[in-house]
């Protein structure tokens, strides 16, 4: 899946860089390599363009993993996993 950089190429950032409690909308999920299963799984879990996300908390060591709220669900994502998700802050 391509990064959509038509409308928001300046403010697009990775979910792993998103400040806590800041509302954002997913613009893409990148494959880290060809046939990336983790990116595929993220899409299955609802990480698809247009969905609002928020980082609610982070782990006590190295601020890893991240607690991500998407829809009604909370997922713990390691930073490397969250880095695959490109978001645009919506505030």
């Amino acid at each position, binding site marked *: 899946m391509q990064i959509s950089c038509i409308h928001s190429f300046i403010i697009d950032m990775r979910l792993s860089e998103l400040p806590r409690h800041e509302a954002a909308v997913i613009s893409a999920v990148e494959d880290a390599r060809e046939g990336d299963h983790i990116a595929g*799984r993220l899409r299955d879990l609802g990480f698809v363009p247009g969905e609002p996300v928020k980082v609610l908390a982070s782990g006590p060591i190295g601020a890893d*993993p991240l607690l991500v709220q998407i*829809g*009604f*669900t*909370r997922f*713990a994502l390691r930073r*490397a996993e969250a880095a695959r998700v490109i978001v645009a802050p919506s505030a």
Partner: protein
Amino acid sequence: MSAAIEVPVAAATTDSLRVALVGNPNCGKTALFNLLTGSRQKVANYAGVTVERKQGRLTTPQGREVLILDLPGAYSLTPASPDEAITRDVCLGTAAGESAPDLIVCVLDATNLRLHLRFALEVARLGRPMLVALNMSDAAARRGIVIDKAKLEAALGVPVVDTIAVRRGGADALLKLLDAHGRTQPALPIAPDADLHAEVNRLLNAAVTMPRRTDARDDLIDRWVLHPVAGLAILAVVLFLIFQAVFAWAAPFQDGIDAGVAFLAQHLGAILPDGLLKSLLVDGIVAGLGGVIVFLPQILFLFLFILALEESGYLPRAAFLLDRLMVGAGLTGRSFIPLLSSFACAIPGIMATRSIQDPRDRLTTIMVAPLMTCSARLPVYALLISAFVPQRDVWLFNLQGLVLFALYIAGIVGALLVSWVMKRFSRDKAEQSLLLELPSYRMPRVRDLAIGLWERATIFLRRVGGIILALTVLLWFLSTFPAPPDGATGPAIDYSFAGRIGQAMEVVFAPIGFNWQICIALIPGLAAREVAVSALATVYALSATSEAAADQLGGLIAQQWSLATALSLLAWYVFAPQCIATLAVIRRETNSVRTMVIATTYLFALAYLAAFAAYRITLALS
């Protein structure tokens, strides 16, 4: 069940309706399964894999026999774990030894439809007869989520029912539907390339109103439980309470089992004539199994807590807090609770690794769990430390306590090294994922806990018990035959196969300072670690009862063994897999004799190396 009623039931199963429950993890599917089938469940493994196969039976109000398969929770039919692969294969009818179900019941958490509907659409796309159960419909109503079932039915083309798995009668609507329809129509066709997320949004817009996104209660609890400081403090308190409870609550039961075993041995001994049968029953089976069964209370209490943590939704939170730490050690946050349980006993720890989805992480956790210092090591440690380590203070600390602490640390460091090596030399270098859902908090239900506990207890006693019994008899045979020659002066075990093997083993064990008495005691000591203490007492021909023997033994070995030998034996016990029950559980949980052999070999090798180092270093220093 008597043979008379077994026949019609067996006959009925051939034409009974076969239903598969599918759904995302945390949709309350297993609670629904428990509600539907109660105690009429059978747990086994799917052919060739270690995925648990849970099947149950029920009779509908109109008398229809239904066989229900509780498939592993899955987020997608594109599998990311062996569990999900099984779910896909059974739904498709391609799983080895399984025929396609007559009806798929797709269970959705009504409070989390955005995620769960997508999976339902994936299942619907298979074109098999299905119906949808909106589970936790009470919680959805409480949160103000209104679902128009008629619209959802029309859009999906399959029946939709409300269920409340945690309430008596909560599955009545589902049962009625099973009676009325049985095999329902497949869902309306969905194009193979359709964007399921867009479909979900369309369905949600058409049929669901939801005022608020998340549960306020979950938000509040998570703010504390996942807090970097408060969260870790809460975790520490939870774990501390569990350990306190396990040891305090299990102790009376363990004393009771000990007393029962002693009573049984005494009475069997009094009734039976002297001879082989008596020896087999009293010294072999009763004593051997008693040594293992005595850990059952601890195992069950630990399991009760693990199940409660899992049901309540706290377990994934603990994994969240500890993931980074465990990743550093080549493991995952999910490994923490199984490994912690292993400090009481490796058996519930290894069985609890089922909650680890990644097969590599699970295997590593199973491999290192026996290195955690379990409670059966304590009698051995206590004997050796009190006999050899002087009772004095080093700075602020008691030297004996320091040595005991060092033994615990040695086990942990060993586990870290082993998991690091396993990761370093693993052939599969693909990135391991966490992607862990933190579900809503739930009050654990007594029925679900009881069924889960019953399952674990039967697995341990029935499946593992057979192996333990066989090995117990083998160890008895080795320690009993051949009988000592007439006029023999030493204890009988010296003349047995075990005695001979022990004496032959001395060649191998002399470099680490073990004498032949230790070598012999190691053989019956395979039954369980603490058995080595009584075995040593036997070899040294101390005929007193266990506690007095341990005291006498301490004095005796303090005179006869060198400090280097004692430290070497301590180092041996940190690593050696002197516990057939653990090995049997490894075999059962990995479904692989090879894994068990590898675990046994590497643990003995590490034990030998550690004992060698301890022996040689002590000799060089003294």
